[in-house]
């Protein structure tokens, strides 16, 4: 038992957890025809059920998932896996039909039905079912109320509400002005931009994968991996001092994590050139600033010329640059994660005097 638990704890390490999520997504997309089978869909549900049932038997794991405010996240995990499976499956089915020269299922269901009774009854049943679920849930699980608020007594860990834990997890890699302000704003802008930058006329009003490959992969990466899996990570696997803890691990306040973090300027001046750090912050950080400028301004242009020129032609300059800029902003998170994991790199640009760290 303990061996199994230790093994699972190992995989929950943020680096592995994230990598495994990405690999899983790649596999789902690549081997989607296999993933679309019923045995995968229901198999995943059963697997998750067994996993959490097993988790309940463990003292530490139990504490995390039965914390009242965490219960919805357990539900979220099931729902997300289910609907990822389901929407990919429906896409695959339509793709197979289209490949066979037929129309998507939705086209066959084009005929009109009466709202009364077809829709009204469905709605009624849905309402009753939801009400029943909500009432049972409310009777079974009491809403939490802890000690009265006390500004002098900081709990450890202090966590934001669960739906913001992805953002809080970003704080590990980015300073608050990016993780808490700029990137969330870009998420909103990015979502809003989707219908205007996506010029692909296909796949409007039916499930498909083949006709919208790039769009779907990017969305799944952002929504499932960057948003939701980081929420799961932040909720279940981050304990005191925001240290990482495996699901079966005891939340030890005194757990020490070796933190060696190095700035890019250290790498360049001290280790690379064997010099002392220059006094002037602009000189000191010149490499980092240059790198950032290249990432934000030069890389999109380079991609338009080479690599993504196909999209450049399709989308035209405005759409292309908006898309690529937003996409690179999204990608900057995993890039920063990798830099941290591989090189212990903390900041690319570090000017704490002006609260300007990237």
């Amino acid at each position, binding site marked *: 038992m303990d061996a199994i638990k230790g093994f699972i704890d190992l995989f929950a390490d943020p680096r592995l957890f994230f990598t495994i999520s990405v690999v899983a997504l790649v596999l789902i997309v690549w081997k989607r025809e296999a993933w679309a089978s019923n045995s995968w869909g229901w198999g995943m549900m059963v697997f998750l059920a067994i996993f959490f049932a097993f988790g309940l038997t463990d003292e530490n794991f139990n504490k995390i998932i039965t914390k009242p*405010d965490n219960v*919805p996240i357990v539900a*979220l995990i099931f*729902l*997300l896996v289910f*609907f990822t499976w389901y*929407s990919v499956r*429906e896409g695959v089915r339509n793709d197979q039909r289209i490949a066979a020269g037929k129309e998507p299922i*939705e*086209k066959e*269901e*084009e*005929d*009109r*039905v009466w*709202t*009364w009774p*077809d*829709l*009204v009854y469905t709605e009624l049943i849905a309402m009753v079912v*939801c009400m029943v679920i*909500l009432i049972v*849930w*409310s009777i079974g*699980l009491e*809403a*939490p*109320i*802890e000690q*009265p*608020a*006390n*500004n002098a*007594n900081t*709990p450890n860990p202090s*966590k*934001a*509400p*669960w739906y*913001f834990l992805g*953002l*809080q997890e970003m704080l590990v890699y980015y300073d*608050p*002005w990016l993780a808490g*302000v*700029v990137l969330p704003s870009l998420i*909103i802008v990015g979502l*809003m931009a989707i*219908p205007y930058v*996506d010029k*692909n*006329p*296909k796949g*409007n*009003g*039916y499930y*498909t994968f083949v006709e919208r490959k790039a769009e*779907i992969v990017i969305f799944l990466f952002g929504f499932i991996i960057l948003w939701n899996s980081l929420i799961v990570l932040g909720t279940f696997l981050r304990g005191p001092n925001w240290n990482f803890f495996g699901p079966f691990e005891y939340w030890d306040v005194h757990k020490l994590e070796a933190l060696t973090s190095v700035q890019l300027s250290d790498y360049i001046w001290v280790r690379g050139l064997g010099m002392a750090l220059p006094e002037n912050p602009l000189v000191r950080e010149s490499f980092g600033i240059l790198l950032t400028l290249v990432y934000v301004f030069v890389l999109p242009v380079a991609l338009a010329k080479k690599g993504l020129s196909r999209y450049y032609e399709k989308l035209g300059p405005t759409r292309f640059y908006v898309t690529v800029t937003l996409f690179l902003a999204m990608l900057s998170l995993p890039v920063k994660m990798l830099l941290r994991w591989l090189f212990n790199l903390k900041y690319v640009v570090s000017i704490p005097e*002006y*609260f300007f760290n990237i």
Partner: protein
Amino acid sequence: MADTKTIEPKAPALVRAWDWITETQIWTSIFRHTAPINDRNRVLVMLSNVFLHMHPVRLRKSGVRLRYTWCMGGISFFLFLVLTFTGLLLMFYYRPTLEYAYSDIVGLREHVPLGIMREMHRWGAHAMVITVWLHMFRVFMTGSYKPPREFNWNVGVIMLVLTLLLSFTGYLLPWDQLAIWAITVGSNMARATPFLGHEGPGFQLMRLGDVQLVHAADDARFALLGGTLVGEGALLRFYVLHCVALPLVIGFLMAVHFWRVRKDGGISGPL
């Protein structure tokens, strides 16, 4: 033979009672036509009932199927209604002041036998966040944001943000450790707002002559909390936002959202 009359069998009592009720002036004043058992009435019921009229009279078959919509938009709306109702009940018990907030919540638990309004409100709110995400997920996967529905997708994104803000502001109200520290962690980010937060890049630039405009008691976080820490000001601010401002705005946007679903040609489908 003398004429014999056939006696029609009498309808069962319940049916007769029903017939009688539905013929009274009261009933006919409420429902202007008989039950939607024929096509004419199926049209009429959608046109004459204010709650149903947001629906079309007929719609594509794929649109009513759970397979296509997962019913997630509808469930989000339903949860919003449940939350409005349970929230209203909670407002009868809860006073947003440092003195009473916590004890009112504790009192709610201790003095209301079998009370589950707080539970329904809290779990309903968590559930709504999830259903709104899943709704967005399905709208994306069916490509339903594509023309002509771009605008409605944007209305949706704003409602998504509002849903999160509603949840966030509500989280503070029980005024326990869980509440204030979650809000503290969340609102600390505002300190780092570029130019407008007192620990944000470039705040030093915000000055008039010698006067520093942005400092701890005058920055984005202060505006959010009505103070330098999560205290009385924040509680009142969050209460008003949570119970009045945000629900009004999101309710208004829902009206726009549903209207646009209709005007954009109903639930999407292949062209």
